[in-house]
């Protein structure tokens, strides 16, 4: 039906024209990334040649091998990013499937108000939490270690997770829950073995959204991780650019491409969940 409709609307020639236009826009839009990639595969003297050229004079992977094997800082940032992001995702998943069940399938006084309060948090600027969290972590000795980033990341991403999870749990028929209880499950077994598997799409959405957000943060990571050793990729790469006078742009380009890859692959795989979770969350929130 849809195909038939589309066919009737545009002639082949207009469709072809449309493709040319959209492809041109796509290239223009991707230009910043393409340019960084272009920079990352050029030899240093080619990048700093004057007058500069658009196309590389020669192609090399030297920047990538240098960054991966010689730059210990980069390896450390990579490790920090991976540990902090994965831990954040796991804790958010646990907390939001638990809380999502409570908000979606259980009744308790003040439920609506509490949930509204949590969703309301989504519009509050992060800068409001930052100062007290910094002072708190300073007292508790949490500055400059993984936990110091994981805990606030969980708190900030949890509202999204809850929004998505509550939506998923509230559409599960209560009969399923009752049947599981009659079969002799206790509430936790029922939640873990019956309900969470049904809510798998919401789990996927929460996973990818939390992953993407935690991987990108700059505000908290740059404030709470004052020691270079503990910085994550978005902060560490900026630090390297500012501190190392000898660092050439080819290396920065390579680091940039390498630091996008770990989030690009899961994003490609789970992008439908990402889109659905995000747009549902936004429309409800």
């Amino acid at each position, binding site marked *: 039906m849809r195909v038939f409709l589309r066919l009737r609307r545009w002639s082949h020639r207009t469709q072809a024209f449309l493709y040319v236009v959209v492809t041109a826009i796509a290239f223009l839009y991707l230009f910043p990334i393409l340019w960084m990639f272009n920079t990352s595969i050029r030899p240093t003297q080619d990048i700093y040649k004057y007058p500069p050229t658009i196309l590389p004079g020669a192609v090399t992977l030297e920047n990538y091998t240098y960054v991966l094997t010689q730059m210990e800082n980069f390896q450390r940032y990579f490790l920090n990013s991976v540990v902090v992001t994965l831990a954040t995702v796991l804790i958010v998943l646990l907390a939001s499937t638990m809380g999502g069940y409570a908000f979606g399938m259980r009744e308790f006084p003040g439920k609506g108000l509490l949930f509204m309060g949590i969703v309301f948090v989504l519009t509050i600027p992060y800068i409001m939490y930052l*100062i007290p969290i910094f002072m708190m972590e300073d007292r508790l000795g949490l500055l400059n270690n993984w936990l110091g980033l994981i805990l606030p990341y969980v708190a900030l991403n949890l509202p999204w997770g809850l929004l998505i999870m509550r939506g998923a749990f509230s559409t599960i028929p209560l009969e399923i829950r009752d049947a599981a209880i009659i079969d002799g499950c206790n509430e936790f077994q029922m939640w873990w073995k019956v309900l969470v598997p049904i809510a798998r799409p919401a789990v996927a959405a929460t996973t990818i959204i939390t992953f993407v957000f935690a991987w990108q943060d700059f505000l908290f990571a740059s404030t709470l991780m004052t020691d270079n050793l503990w910085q994550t990729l978005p902060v560490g790469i900026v630090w390297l650019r500012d501190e190392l006078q000898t660092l050439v742009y080819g290396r920065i380009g390579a680091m940039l491409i390498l630091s996008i890859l770990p989030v690009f692959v899961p994003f490609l795989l789970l992008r439908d969940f990402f889109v659905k979770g995000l747009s549902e969350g936004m429309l409800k929130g």
Partner: protein
Amino acid sequence: MHTRKRWTVRRVQSTLNLIIFLLPTLLFVFVFIAFPILFSGYLSFTEYNYAMDVAPTFIGLRGYVDVLLHDGFLHTALKNQFFFAVPYFILTFLVSLGLAILVSELRHGMQLYQIVFYLPMIIPLSLVGITFAWILAPDLGVFNVILQRVGLGKWARDWYGDPDTALYALVAARSWKMIGFTFIILLSGIQSIPTSLREAARVDGAGFWGEIRHVVLPLLRPYLLISGIWIIINSIKVFDLPKVITQGGPGVSTLTLYLYSWKAAFERFDMGLASRVAYITAFIILFLSWLLNLLLKPEEAERF
């Protein structure tokens, strides 16, 4: 008697379960969200230098009066936010709407183009900043090189180093990333419109633009509203880019509310001032989203 007791036990058990299910959420929300909001609210009414070992002094509303009436930096930040927000809103909104309409018309390969336009969403803003700073650099930046090649060499400049253009160069970078976000919402909105409605419009002889104007845009309204609100809220939360590219400069030409609050807190350790600026920022965001809701949803606003 026996059954009644069992009922009570089960009820206690059930309440206990509920508390356990809610515990992680409540713990994180109270410790890292509710408490910080209240505490920075308290700090905003005090004079407090974190670098000195002195407790906060309560000064009531005086701090707010001072900062709102006499703080030139705050006024500059407010002005900058305004001149940032207007082009940012127009650019992001129009480009993502146009892209969503174009891509929704594609017959094949829509997935591929979607990925292309989503892509900036996964690139950290600080790295977007590095990228744009490199592209818009004065001598080796490719943008100036291209300008020279096409004979517009007199326009070439240090885009982030020139106080006249720095803020708008930040708009370009921020907008580039945000477009992916609003594109997602608008495209899923367009796809949710039943084809039968659009077909009906076409049977009635509406052209492409007529169909967009009379069918697509009205039905897209909730999606337009949501993306509008998110763009506006986002236009206030500007930190990563000026922090990475311009440090608020040249001079104070790219000082934003976030950056001002951050600098007050972590360069001067003036936590009172920083909290006041943060609260003013939050207030502006809430006020704007409330206003937008009211303006764009008149039929629902009437009920209030």
